[in-house]
């Protein structure tokens, strides 16, 4: 099965760097697996000694030996399982980090179609299954194999027929297990997707909790939860029944094997081929085989989970970004230092659904100039910003920054030199500092504080930048969050700044107070500013008006303002009419008008 072999190869790749550690673990597991075989030999010997009429002291010594072996066995077992856990977590944590890195490298489109809850389930839930697999199952499996091999060797030493009989029996059990295992992987995947749906749904409802509360939609949310929980319930039952079939197969064989061992032992004893003590050893070993095999079955759920999880992990790892980093290739070219010129050469774009979002966009913005972009919702403005940041790639045509095609600029350099301040600011669970630096330890606290103050969030700096921001940013209003996003960019000193409705949630008064800071932020940089509120654009050098994915007007701002038949002028007039009507109330004068 090719689908199963790929994840296992991925697993081997994970284990390889820790080869030495895994060898040490193997040693501990070996000791732990072989020690239990000693017990039945000692008891069997006691049975024979009793029948031979040996002195009681011999039996007492056997009892002592049995206790000593048991104690050593326990210590080894704890050491082995502890070590296995450490190793498993090391490996799994590495996998978590790799996967997070991988997922962050995937396209914008990928993140648009996958919930964070679903991805957490992959990166954390599934990887935990893999970790459990490495920590508990591998050791259990290896140990079980060793115990079985040891058993066969010892029995064969008594009488080859015993070894051969038990060997055949084990073979039968293994065939049954392997066959049933094949059936199980698909079902495990069903279970995990049922759980992903359940927890993804819960996360989504928690995220939307305030909306649901204020809409009186609690009953609706619960009804959807019941649907998801019922799906999970049905899937769990199917899984349990599959597991029970497997269990019947194994236990049925072991039970039958034990009965046969009794009969075989009895037959050989009555034929005087073996002693009663050896018959006991045979029976006991048949019973003991049950426990390594059962250990495997007990952990079979984990194996099923882990195989399902590895399949999904492998699937996720196989998702390739369509946007390829030029770093390290011949193409890699750095644009000249300083502000970056922006060139669109007949650029088209659609999200892969034949519904064009950008149509034949042709645009030249010289280095250090600022461009304002206006247009209706859905006119392609945000897509324009995503193309400049290479979050999406033009379907045709070329975008160049500093005369270098964007695809040839190493991603690291692009991210360093181009900054975006988006409309919807995402905050993280952490300190104010973490939210401004995005966990980067390089900027000093003073620099961070200065940036926060510069964007007008002085009260946050007063509270102390190591103060925790309310969970998921609940402590900031949307406007304050936008100011914080501005502080992020402030710290980075990029060469090109893209503002996508970056001040939409900031009231005009505050925006005006920010004007000096904005001018400073944009000075010496190329800037693309997308805004509904025309006052935001009053300092721009050039203006572009977009409509249905096309540039319908582009020119110097002063020229467009003067062009009475132009689209930009019409928008201005629309906003201006408002101003004239509203001139009266003094306390609300600072609003979205054009003031020059």
């Amino acid at each position, binding site marked *: 099965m090719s689908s199963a072999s790929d994840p296992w190869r991925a697993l081997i790749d994970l284990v390889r760097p820790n080869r030495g550690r895994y060898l040490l673990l193997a040693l501990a597991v070996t000791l732990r697996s072989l020690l239990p075989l000693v017990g039945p030999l000692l*008891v069997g010997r006691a*049975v024979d000694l009793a*029948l031979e009429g040996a002195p009681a002291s011999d*039996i007492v010594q*056997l*009892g002592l030996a*049995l206790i000593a072996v048991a104690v050593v066995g326990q210590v080894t*077992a704890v050491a082995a*399982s502890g070590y296995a856990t450490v190793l498993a977590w090391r490996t799994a*944590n590495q996998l*978590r980090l790799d996967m*997070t890195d991988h*997922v962050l490298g995937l396209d914008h489109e990928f993140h648009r*179609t996958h919930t964070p*809850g679903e991805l957490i389930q992959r990166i*954390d839930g599934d990887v935990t299954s893999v970790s459990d697999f490495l920590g508990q199952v591998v050791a259990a499996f290896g140990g079980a194999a060793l115990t079985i091999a040891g058993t066969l060797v010892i029995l064969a030493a008594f009488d080859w027929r015993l070894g051969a009989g038990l060997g055949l029996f084990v073979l039968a059990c293994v065939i049954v297990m392997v066959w049933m295992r094949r059936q199980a992987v698909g079902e495990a995947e069903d279970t995990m997707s049922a759980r992903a749906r359940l927890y993804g749904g*819960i996360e989504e*409802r*928690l*995220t939307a909790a*305030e909306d*649901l509360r*204020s*809409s009186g939609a*609690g*009953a609706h949310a*619960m*009804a959807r*939860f*019941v649907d998801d*929980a019922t799906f999970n319930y049905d899937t769990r039952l199917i899984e349990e029944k599959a597991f*029970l079939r497997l269990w019947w197969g194994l236990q049925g064989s072991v*039970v039958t094997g*034990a009965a046969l061992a009794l009969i075989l032992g009895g*037959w050989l004893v009555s034929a005087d081929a073996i002693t009663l003590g050896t018959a006991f050893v045979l029976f*006991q070993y048949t*019973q003991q085989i049950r426990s390594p095999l059962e250990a495997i079955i007990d952990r079979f759920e984990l194996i099923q989970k882990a195989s399902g999880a590895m399949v999904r992990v492998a699937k996720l790892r196989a998702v390739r970004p369509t946007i390829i980093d030029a770093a390290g290739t011949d193409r890699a070219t750095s644009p000249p230092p300083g502000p970056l010129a922006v060139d669109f050469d007949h650029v088209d774009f659609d999200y892969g659904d034949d519904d064009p979002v950008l149509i034949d966009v042709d645009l030249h913005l010289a280095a250090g100039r600022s461009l304002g972009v206006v247009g*209706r919702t859905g006119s392609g403005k945000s897509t324009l910003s995503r193309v400049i940041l290479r*979050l999406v790639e033009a379907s045709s045509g070329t975008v160049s920054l500093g005369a270098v095609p964007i695809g040839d600029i190493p991603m690291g350099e692009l991210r360093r030199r181009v*900054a*975006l301040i*988006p409309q919807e*600011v995402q905050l*993280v*669970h952490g300190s104010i500092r*973490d939210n401004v*630096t995005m*966990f*980067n330890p390089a900027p000093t606290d003073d620099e961070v504080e200065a940036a926060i103050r510069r964007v007008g969030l002085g009260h946050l700096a007063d509270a102390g930048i190591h103060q925790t921001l309310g*969970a*998921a940013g*609940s*402590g900031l*209003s949307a406007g304050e969050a936008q100011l914080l996003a501005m502080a992020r960019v402030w710290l980075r000193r990029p060469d090109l700044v893209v503002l996508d409705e970056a001040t*939409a949630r900031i*009231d005009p008064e505050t925006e005006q107070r920010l004007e000096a800071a904005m001018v400073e932020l944009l000075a010496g940089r190329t800037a693309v500013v997308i805004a509904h509120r025309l006052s935001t654009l009053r300092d721009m050098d050039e203006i572009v008006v977009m409509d249905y994915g096309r540039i319908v007007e582009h020119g110097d701002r002063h020229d467009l303002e003067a062009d009475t038949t132009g689209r930009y002028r019409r928008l201005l007039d629309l906003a201006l009419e408002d101003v004239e*009507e*509203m001139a009266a109330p003094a306390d*609300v004068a600072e609003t*979205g008008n054009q003031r020059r």
Partner: protein
Amino acid sequence: MRTLDGKPDIDDTDHYRRRGIWSLAWEISQERKREFWLGYAMFILFFAAPAAVGWFVGQAFDALTDNDTSRLYWMAGFMWLAEVFRLAVLQVGAVAFTKSWTLMSSLMQGNMLAAQVASGGPEAGQPVGSAGAAVTHFRDDPHDVAIFVDSWLDVSGAIVYTTIALSIMATIDLPATLVVLVPMVAVALVTMVLDTRIKQYRRADRQATAEVTGLLGDILSAATTVKVNNATDSSLARLKELVDERRRTAVKDRLLNEGLYEFSNGTADIGLGLVLMVGAGAIVAGSFTPGELVLFAAYLVWLGFLPRMIGRTIARHKQAMVAFDGMRRLVAGHSAARVARQRHLPIGLDRPTPARLDAERIPLQELTVESLTARYPTPSGNGHGDDQGADGRAGIRDISFRMARGSITVVTGPVGAGKSTLLRAILGLAWQAEVTGTVRWNGEVIEDRAAFLVPPQAAFLSQVPQLLSDSVADNIRLGGTAQDDDVARALRLAAVETDIAEMPDRAETMIGPRGLRLSGGQRQRVAAARALVQNPELLVMDDLSSALDVETEIELWTNLAAEGVTVLAVSHRRVALERADQVLTLDRGRLV
């Protein structure tokens, strides 16, 4: 220690003294009685069966000692039958208990979710901050409680088995039976000693896990932000710190649990060694036969099970306590009893879930807000309404105003003035703040504003509204009775009609997780349609228009004015202000 709601960790061990973990878990287990008790009975039979198996094996070896082969074959046959019986009861028991287990988890999840989405009333719980971190309480905590209940089956079965086995052994050789009790008591004692440790490690592990999922959730929700801020490496470095910490806590937790398991597992052989030493005389004398020794060996294998399960149950009891401690933060009054309350959700049944019931419409004549104050907790603990809270949230102080039916009131003011807080305080949604003052509906005081101010009385549109992975129409109806016409009308009023008409399945188009297939502006307008669909008496909007272009916004306001909707809105825009009958300007939490 930081908690989900940002409040100091409340240590109320008293709480559990009043209502123990046992009684809470018991109530949960009885959510669906039939499945629980069927599983319970079957598992007792399953665990007791080895007593019969061991007895037949002993008889077989005695027959062998006597060279009575035909009796040996009979005994081997009986042993086989006893084992098959064991398998059969497991089949029935496992299916029944899987049902019971899943339903128990769903009950706890349902109780927490219901508290998180309840509009008000006694059931509504304090909102959680981070949904990503809260998912742990839905995923892992119910599991820990269910596995605690699961251990009752094991313990009950083990008690039955142990009683039978010890009785039979005592009739064979009393001293050898008594000596077997020594390692059993040791297992129980070791478990007691490690008891408290288990709880500590468990708690640390939970905390570390919540930190990891919380950060992962943040990073993944903000994937684009991380990318465009060139912060992939630094975010991963932070994640590495957290996962390393979790590794340490997990290893401690696991090591202790596994250590306990292995210790009790090895006691069978220690017990048998003691039996050989104590019974040596009787064995040599022939009064303790080989068959009886085999019976001892067979019984000892399972005798370790009871002390082990007692130990595990104690450990799981601790883990269940940690779990309840986490879960109760999501329900009303932080009360663990509410997590356990029976709910009889129709999961796996052909019974419909209770439908949404909306309150009777009470036409609004006048809304009066009187001396409304909301204070957020400050670092020093003494809240001042005009100060910002510890985490930067703006409070409000002594706000009073009235609005009449059909009027439009616009709230404006600089960032951090408390505009959103004012709306939330009116609506009963300012959970983190201490709110005083009254709101009257037609002159009558609204007692539970969160419960009353929902459709059809009021609808709220927040600054960043959240949608669900459903169709457009389902997002608007939210389980209500709105007809297709109502939805179409709401879409038109919200100025999103043409956008939806261009979609492949129109209003039935699925909009993806959290509605992410829509643009930001479309999401906001679909949410506006959701608010308008039930013709609310009062529409409360928190700066809805920030994602809209001027033309769309004018269209929206024109529609609202034409419909005569009573509106309370935060806005800075001229288009809103020009239509306002009343403008409230806030500055640092006060009306100016």
